[in-house]
């Protein structure tokens, strides 16, 4: 199984969630995040004070899926999150050794 971490624009959380639900992926963790890649920050002046935002608000989605579903899930996220502009975000993959369901100790893919 693989862990998929996707950092996306805040405006894309609903389309990505809906797209994942449509392919039968229900479980995910959503975190509020800030960051930047090549996307520049934002500076605004208000009442003589400077407000610089160099860490742009983002949403991070984390989910663990069985190996055979990884590619489909990655493509679904990328497709739903894409605008074509700098700042669309990134997806990272990492191997997961095991998953355990707390309620009944189920392990492996069936715990996902």
């Amino acid at each position: 199984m693989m862990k998929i971490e996707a950092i996306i624009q805040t405006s894309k959380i609903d389309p990505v969630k809906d797209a994942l639900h449509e392919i039968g992926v229900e479980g995910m963790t959503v975190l509020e995040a800030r960051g930047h890649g090549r996307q520049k920050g934002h500076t605004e002046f208000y009442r003589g004070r400077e407000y610089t935002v160099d860490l742009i608000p983002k949403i991070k989605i984390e989910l663990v899926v069985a190996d055979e579903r990884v590619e489909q899930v990655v493509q679904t996220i990328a497709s739903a999150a894409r605008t074509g502009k700098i700042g669309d975000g990134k997806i990272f993959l990492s191997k997961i050794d095991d998953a355990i369901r707390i309620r009944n100790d189920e392990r492996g893919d069936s715990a996902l």
Partner: protein
Amino acid sequence: MVANPLLGKDLRDFYTAESTRVREEFSARRDGRAAVHGRTALVDSVAHRLWKELVSPDLESPRGFALLALGGYGRRWLFPFSDIDILFLHDGGESDSELRNRVRVFSQEMWDLRLKLSPASRTLSECEKFDPGNVEFAISLLDCRCLAGDQNLFARLHDHIIPKVVARESRAIVQKLTDLTRARYNKFGNTVFHLEPNVKDGPGGLRDYNLALWLALIAAMEEQNVWPEEKTLLPPWLRQRFDDALDFLMSVRCFLHFRHGRDDNTLVWAMQDEAAAARVGVPDDAPLTASEWMRNYFSRARLIHRVAEQLLDEFPAARPSLYRQFQTLRSRLSNAEFAVVDGRIFLQRQEALGDPELPLRMFRFMARHGLSLSSATEHQMEQNLPALTAAPPKGGELWHYLQEILLAPHAADALRTMHSLRLLTLLLPEFQVIDSLVIRDFSHRFTVDEHSFVAIENLHALRKSQSKWDQGYAELLDELEQPELLYLALLLHDTGKATKPTDHIAGSLEIAERCLVRLDLEPSDRETVLFLIKHHLDMGSALRRDIFAPETIAQIAETMGTSERLKMLCLFTYADVKAVNPEALTPWKAENMWQLYIGAANALMRSADRRFHGDVEEEVMAHLRTLMPAAGARLDAFLDGLPRRYLRTQAASDVIRHMEMANRLEQDPVQVELTRGRHWYELTLVTRDRPFLFAKLVGTLAAWGMNIVKATAFSNGAGVVVDTLYFTDRFRTLELNLPEWERFKTSVHDVLMGKADLDRMLRDRLKSEKKTPPKMKVDTRIEIDDECSEQSTLIEVITQDQPGLLYRISSLFARENCNIEIAIIETESQTAIDAFYLTSQGAKLAPGHQERLRHELLTELANK
């Protein structure tokens, strides 16, 4: 001591059969009190049998050894899955090993029946020693009763030792009770009104009932040194309602235990549905929705919580000495109507309740000073409610008091007390629909009415917050011209959840409109409140978009229309989101909302120059024509070419007034009006534009010692200007000298007509004024934006506010051949924030001109 091997099976069969009987009786009758008593009697029977089998065939033997029930078991309140606390009391005569054996075998038999037994053993002398580290034991003794064994031993404990210990250690016991209670309340957000409340530990639950009686018992014991009669612990008028509330909670807890099969006391939504369908705790047969059933819960929990809190607060030992000193100081707040004793309000004269406005003055007093009502005052209020119902305050009078309550720092607590005493729904019947209303939403924590109170509380708390983001929002709150409208909107914004749950905004607007008419609010104020309710989700929704995208910002700015509404809605969103649950407004959200706010505020500033044209804005013209049917073509001529911002910031009545002033220009070319607003004086000038006009106007005010706080200056296509200056009268000239009003207006008129020497007036003023150093240093910033307007160049000047500043800036513009098309002047503490849309010879400023102007301004403002 050895158990009969058949005893266990026999007892198990007996226990199982009787438990089933208790359960079946509860299913049939839903009587919680009968169920807990029945279970108590069952466990008593088991204990008696075990005693006879294992200790002595005589239930009143042996000497020197007794079995006591403590805590809930002692009170005869054994819920289906609650713990069973017992105490083996002895006189120290037995050897340790003998005693331990008795306790072990006895307890083992009970554990074998799967009873959740918590045994303890003590000697009499150990009970007499108070252990500050185990105050819970002393509290549990307050409910002790003898199950079996030496009655004399028990009597010595019950009749002598316990009263002595309680009287001696009441302070420590009550202090511990207070600490435990405050921690418990904190855990549950200090409110009764959770969507899924805990009926045992939550505020207003069974623990609070116990607390109230313990406090009353301890107070009586402290005074009398003996056990008081239980029926004397609470006043008779309260006792019956308290017992009714207890019956309800007992039934609910029994229902939950039987349903869950364990000691789970949370009324989750599924259980609310089932309890409503089974009519748990409710005697009659009419069908009941879950929401309606929950109202039964909340009304009882509210009563229990109120009584517990009052007793906790009134018990002197519960409060540390510093707090008592503080409360003693607060007694100086007493006045002719209200006495303040230990932070609680008493009526000086009961007959004063004949005045229907007295309750409102009392709650205003409460809201201002953060006081509570004494239980006596609450009782008097409740008794007086029928009389008040017959002739309640209404209309403008009611709104006058209500807004003062809403603006006071402890508004939320005052409103909660008004609500619990049924006064709020008497005065605002529209609020009744959301009384204790549960709306099932996974993110919301509280009932709808409590959510509204928490939102109001969140705004008032801004002023005391140390958080970086909260301070920005707190500054916005201080800048609002009519914050009472914001608070009123917060109070009413979710009323529609009761009538139109799928479109609560539409429902809230309908309800709020009725309320606002009844409160006799000015039409423009009604519009503001309705606007806030209508758009209260807009900023939250925008946070789910790209907050830096120009289209997002432009849309928010366009919807808000004015900076005042933008500020109000930003604060509304802050308060509303934070009231969903304590974690809802994350720092991430707060920062994003702030960024969105400043983006939209700047967008509004940069779009101030968009002009109004009647042939394009038919809807606006149609609305104004209905208000001014006789105006005809004069209206079109007056409005044409004025910035759209003018129409958005001016009430229709003000537009009419300005138009009429413009119509009188033929008779007098300088039209001046002066009024006194709530915070500032307001001077309105309507005249034809000419060079140095704005400079002369603001210079005249500076010469009179007036401090301009805000200003707007607009001109229409025909060159008629409408300038409004909001100022404070530093030397109270106008306030203390009525004749000076006319002289002041005449002075403005004469300066603008060239009949008075402004330079001499300013020199005289400067000579007489002492220079006081500023409290904080503000660096000067000049921002020039040539892109935001097609017709003019925007210059923003942020600098140290000082007398005569606006005159110096506007004079410089005039000297540099710049015409002020629009001026938007604001002051924030010691910072002047002035925005000017300038033209030169009817066009934008050339780049070279812009830079020269920047240089001149910086030089002028650096020259003190």
